[in-house]
């Protein structure tokens, strides 16, 4: 792809964001919306920059990121290994499949009260909830990716004398990588959302807690700051995952 369409794409893409900001500013300036309900964008971003430099805000972000990563890592490890196992072994498949069928559509947020009662108000309940929510997209796409691996590849590896365990790691896992990474991407977005919700429901720190506190005291500016922060966090993590994806899949024909 040459540079010109890329640049015009970028311009086109930034247009709605700019329009949104302009609309926001216009609503405040001319629409007569009171500042207590919709603070002007300049004030929100100024407040955010100011907050980002304070230690306490950084600690809140750190708490959120820690929970996010802990839950997401558990989900990736469990999801990929269960998905591979279910694709490779019929008995495991027979057990995992119905359980996933039942648990995947369950709204996990409804489980959160139970988690609070069982594992407490600390990090654990949030991490478990994040892991539970991110697990299923990763598991399902790993399973899907591993089960559409071409049988010929496996046969060739077997003909070359590769033991079954090694086939799983050296043929099936790399061949399923694109699908697994797509699942991870969905899982990551879900993790961002869920960690925030969990912190809103019951927490003493983290970005979600900041939002609830601001909402209770009707500080509109402080309500926008954590929301924009979690959106930026999601964008950055998404970008990192995308970079990891293009590095991991550098040998694949189309990504």
């Amino acid at each position: 792809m040459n540079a010109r369409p890329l640049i015009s794409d970028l311009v086109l893409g930034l247009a709605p964001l700019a329009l949104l900001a302009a609309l926001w500013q216009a609503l405040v300036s001319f629409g007569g919306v009171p500042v207590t309900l919709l603070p002007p964008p300049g004030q929100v971003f100024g407040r955010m920059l100011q907050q980002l430099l304070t230690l306490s805000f950084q600690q809140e972000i750190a708490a959120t990121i820690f929970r996010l990563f802990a839950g997401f890592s558990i989900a990736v490890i469990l999801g990929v290994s269960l998905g591979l196992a279910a694709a490779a072994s019929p008995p495991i498949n027979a057990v995992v499949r119905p359980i996933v069928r039942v648990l995947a559509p369950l709204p996990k947020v409804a489980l959160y009260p139970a988690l609070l009662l069982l594992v407490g108000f600390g990090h654990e309940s949030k991490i478990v909830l994040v892991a539970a929510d991110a697990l299923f997209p990763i598991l399902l796409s790993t399973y899907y990716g591993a089960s559409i691996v071409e049988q010929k590849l496996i046969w060739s590896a077997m003909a070359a004398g590769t033991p079954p365990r090694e086939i799983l790691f050296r043929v099936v896992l790399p061949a399923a990588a694109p699908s697994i990474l797509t699942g991870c991407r969905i899982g990551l977005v879900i993790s961002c959302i869920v960690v925030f919700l969990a912190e809103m429901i019951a927490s003493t720190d983290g970005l979600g807690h900041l939002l609830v506190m601001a909402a209770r005291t009707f500080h509109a500016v402080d309500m926008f700051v954590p929301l924009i922060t979690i959106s930026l966090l999601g964008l950055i993590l998404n970008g990192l995952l995308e970079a990891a994806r293009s590095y991991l899949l550098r040998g694949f024909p189309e990504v």
Partner: protein
Amino acid sequence: MSVGTLFKHLAPFLACLGLLVVWQAASLVLHNDSFPTAIEAIRAIPSILGDKEALFNFAASLRRMAIGFGAAVVVSIPLGLLMGRSRHVASFFNPLLMVIYPVPKAALMPIIMMWLGVGDVAKTLVIFLGVSLPVIYHSFEGAKAVEEKMLWSGAAMGLSSLQRMIRIVLPAALPDILTGCRTGLVLALITMITSEMIARQSGAGNILFNALDMGQYDTVFAMIVVVGAMGIVFDALFEALRTRLVRWSEPPFEIPLSFS
């Protein structure tokens, strides 16, 4: 073979039963006051479902969910298909959607509440926002993957671009769209519960979190069972609809890989 198919149909029920047994055993072992046994929780369900006010709450929840979900599907599918077929539309909306995607929709609830009040409008809007993104995304992916040759043939046979959109792109992208709708359905339930938790006025989430605050633990767990059952039933119904609509494109991943 009939035993095999029978098992296949029964497997989800067996899984439910197994999970309930694990729950029962865990609560008996842990012996914790705030963790009632499965039997106690299930015994509390009839009193919830028999209560007229609770049923009213459920009806309110379901009405909001249906309106939010329906509106989201009606808006998102055409938008996603357009994005998939036109590069300009795609590059116009993609960055905006990428920015909105990681924002927890239910977290917008406090802000939307300030603008629109705590009533139905705010909650329905939040559900609408939560459902529309996955539907847009999957419709986009589906429309992008439509084979060009089919569109060329359609154009050669004199279909206008609108007709091509409805008669070729829509059916070809339908499997993806329905996958998106399925994700959206689960998300609608999640957003419904969370929005009601934040603006406690009516609804299933209201019952659940009020019970938690008042320490009625058997009601909490009974509500979890009820909401979970709602999720499973909706998913099963939708899955039945989906298999009817797109039987031609059943993905071949029913067969596990063979290592022999």
